[in-house]
C-alpha cells in the first residue's frame, strides 16, 4: 500500500520534471504523427529531424551556459555568431581541405574574442545583457559585411561536407559531433570545478562570491564560450549547407536557442537545468515544426500553434515564484 503510493508520487514528481515532460511530448508527437501520416516516425525521418535539431542544439549549448550563469544572462547575438562562423570558415578555408583546421581555429579565436566583448560589457560596464548582446549582433553584421564586401563567400570544402553529412552506420557525422558535445557538456557540468562554480553563481551570486567564485571573470568567459560555440556551429552549418546562401542564415538561431533552453527545463533565473534537457528541447521544437508541416497546416497557423504550445509548455514549468508577501 505504502509502496504503491510511493511509486505514484515518483510518477507524479516525474511529470513535474521538465525533461520528462519534454521527452513525453516528443513521443506523443511521434506517435500521433505516425498515426496521421504513416512513416513519420521512421528512422530516416527522425534522423533528418535530428540533423536539423543538432545545429539548434549546439547553439543552445552556449545559450544554456549563459542562462545558467544567472544575472539575467542572455545572448541575443548567437545567431549572428553562427553566420560569422560560417563566413570566416568559408573565407579562410577557400574550399581547400588542407586549410580546414586553420579555418576552424580562425573561427574559434574570432568568435571567442567577440564574445568576450559581450562579457566585458555585461560584467564590467553593467550593460544589461539583452541590450549588450543585441547591439553586438548589429556590430557583427557590420563586420560580416566588411568581410564579404558584397561578394559571395567560398562554400564548404569537400572534407567538411563529408564530415557533416557523411553517414556512418546510417547516421550522419553531425549527430556524432552533437553527441560528443553533449557528453562533453554533461561532463563539464557534473565533474568539473567550472560546472560547480557556474551552477553556484547562477543560483546565488552573492553566496558564490563568498564561496570563492570570481563571479565577474567567470561570467565574462561564458559570453566568450557562447560566441565561440555559436561560431563553430556556423562553421559546421557551412558544411551542411555547402554554401553561404545569404548573410542572415544564422538569424533564426537566436530566438530558437533561447526557447530550446527554456523548453528543456532550464530556468531563466539561472542555476537550474541540464544539457540533456536542452537537447531534448531542441529536438522537440524541430519535431513540432515537422509535425505541423506533415499534417499540412499552413505556415501562419503553424506559427500560431507553435507559439501557443510554447506558452503552454512554459506555463507548465517555467513560472516565476509567487511574489506577494
Amino acid at each position, binding site marked *: 500500500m505504502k509502496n504503491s503510493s510511493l511509486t505514484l508520487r515518483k510518477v507524479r514528481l516525474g511529470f513535474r520534471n521538465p525533461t520528462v515532460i519534454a521527452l513525453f511530448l516528443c513521443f506523443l508527437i511521434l506517435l500521433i504523427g505516425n498515426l496521421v501520416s504513416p512513416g513519420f516516425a521512421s528512422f530516416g525521418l527522425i534522423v533528418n529531424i535530428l540533423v536539423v535539431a543538432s545545429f539548434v542544439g549546439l547553439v543552445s549549448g552556449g545559450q544554456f551556459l549563459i542562462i545558467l550563469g544567472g544575472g539575467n544572462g*542572455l545572448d*541575443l547575438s548567437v545567431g549572428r555568431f553562427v553566420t560569422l562562423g560560417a563566413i570566416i570558415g568559408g573565407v579562410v578555408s577557400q574550399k581547400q581541405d588542407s586549410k580546414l583546421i586553420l579555418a576552424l581555429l580562425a573561427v574559434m579565436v574570432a568568435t571567442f574574442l567577440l564574445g568576450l566583448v559581450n562579457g566585458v*560589457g555585461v560584467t564590467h*560596464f*553593467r*550593460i*544589461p545583457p*539583452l*541590450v*549588450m548582446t*543585441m*547591439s*553586438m*549582433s*548589429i*556590430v*557583427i*553584421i*557590420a*563586420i560580416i*559585411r*566588411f568581410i564579404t564586401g558584397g561578394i559571395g563567400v567560398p562554400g564548404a570544402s569537400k572534407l567538411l561536407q563529408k564530415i557533416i553529412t557523411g553517414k556512418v552506420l546510417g547516421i550522419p557525422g553531425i549527430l556524432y559531433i552533437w553527441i560528443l558535445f553533449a557528453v562533453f557538456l554533461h561532463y563539464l557540468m557534473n565533474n568539473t570545478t567550472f560546472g560547480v562554480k557556474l551552477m553556484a553563481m547562477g543560483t546565488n551570486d552573492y553566496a558564490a562570491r563568498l564561496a570563492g567564485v570570481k563571479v565577474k571573470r567567470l561570467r565574462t568567459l561564458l559570453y566568450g564560450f557562447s560566441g565561440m560555440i555559436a561560431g563553430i556551429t556556423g562553421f559546421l552549418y557551412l558544411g551542411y549547407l555547402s554554401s553561404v546562401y545569404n548573410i542572415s542564415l544564422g538569424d533564426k538561431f537566436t*530566438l530558437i536557442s*533561447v*526557447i530550446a533552453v*527554456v523548453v528543456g527545463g532550464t530556468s*531563466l*533565473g539561472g542555476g537550474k537545468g541540464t544539457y540533456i534537457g536542452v537537447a531534448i528541447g531542441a529536438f522537440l521544437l524541430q519535431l513540432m515544426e515537422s509535425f505541423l508541416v506533415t499534417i499540412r497546416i499552413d*505556415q*501562419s*497557423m*503553424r*506559427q*500560431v*500553434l*507553435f*507559439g*501557443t504550445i*510554447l*506558452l503552454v509548455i*512554459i*506555463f507548465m514549468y*517555467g*513560472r*516565476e*515564484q*509567487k*511574489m*506577494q*508577501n
Partner: protein
Amino acid sequence: MKSKKETFLQFSKSLPRKPYFLSMIILIFFFIMLGFIGRNYYSAYNLTTKFRLWMPLLLVALGQTFVILGGGLDMSVSSLLALVNVVTVRLLMSLSGSPFQVPIAILAGIGVGITAGFVNGLLVTYLRLPPLISTYGTQIVWGGLALRVLHQSGGEVPFSWYTVYSSTFLGIPFSVYLLALLLLGVYYLKRTGFVTQLKACGGNIHGAYESVLPVNKLRIQSYMLCGFFASLAAICIVAETVTGNPLSGSGYELESISAVALGGTSLAGGAGGFLGSILGAIVLKLINDVIFFAGLGVNYQVLAQGLIIILALAAGGQLTKQNTSRAQLKRRKKV
C-alpha cells in the same frame, strides 16, 4: 517666488543628473554635425519627412517605456505592429465604400493592440510567466496571426491616408500634432500618479505590495498601453506605405528597447522616463544620417549604430555611478 532666471539656472544645474542627459548630449552633437555636413538637412521638407519616418519608433519606444518602468519587457511589439497593420488594411479593403470605413479600421487596429497587450499582461502577472520568454511566445503567435490575415505584402489603402498623414498645418506636420497629443496623454498619466505607482512595481515589488498597490492591475495596464502605442505606430506605417505588410514590424522590439535604454531608463525597472525614450529613439535614427552625410559606406552605418549604443550605455553606467557618489559626497560635506 523664484524668478525665471533662477528656475532656469536650477534646471540646468540638475540637468547632468537627468536620466536622459547622455542621449541629449549625443543628440545635440548630431544635430550640430548635421548642420555642417548634412546638405539642406534643416529644410522644412526634409525635417517633415524625417519626422514622419521616425514616428513609428518614437511611439513604440514610448509604449515600451511603460512596460519597462513596471519591471517588464515586451518582445512581442514587432509582430504586433504587423498584426495591427494587416488587420487595419484588411478592414479598409473589405469596408471599402462604407462611410465608417476609416474609423472602424482604425478602432479595430487599436482594439487589437490593446487586447494583445492585455494578453501579455495576463501572462506575466496572473500566470507568472517570465516577461522575456512569454512575450517571445506571443511574438510568434501575433506573427502567425498576421500572416493568416494577409499572406503577403499588398492590399490597397486609400491614398488619402498618406495625404492626411503627410500634411502640414501651420507649417507643422500632422505627425507632430499626433505625438504632441499622445505626450499630453502621457503627461496626464504622470499627473494621476499612475506612472509613479508603476515605477514602484518595477522598483521594489515587495514595497509595492506593502503599500497596498494593485500591482497586477498596474502591470497589465502597462502592457495594454504598450499595445495601444504599438497599434498607433502600425497605423502610421500603414499611412506612410499605403499598403499592408505582414512582416512590417520586424526589429522594432529590439530597437525600441535600445531606445529606452539609451534614454536612461533602467531595464531592471523603476527608474527612467518618457522624454529619454524619445531622445533615444531619435538618436538611433540619426546615427544613419550622420554616417551617411559623413560620406562613409552603409557598412559603417551599421557598425556605428551598434558601437554607439554600446558606448553610450557603458558611459551611461559610469555616469550614474559618478552621480551617486557625488550626491553622497555632497551630503557628507553638509553634515
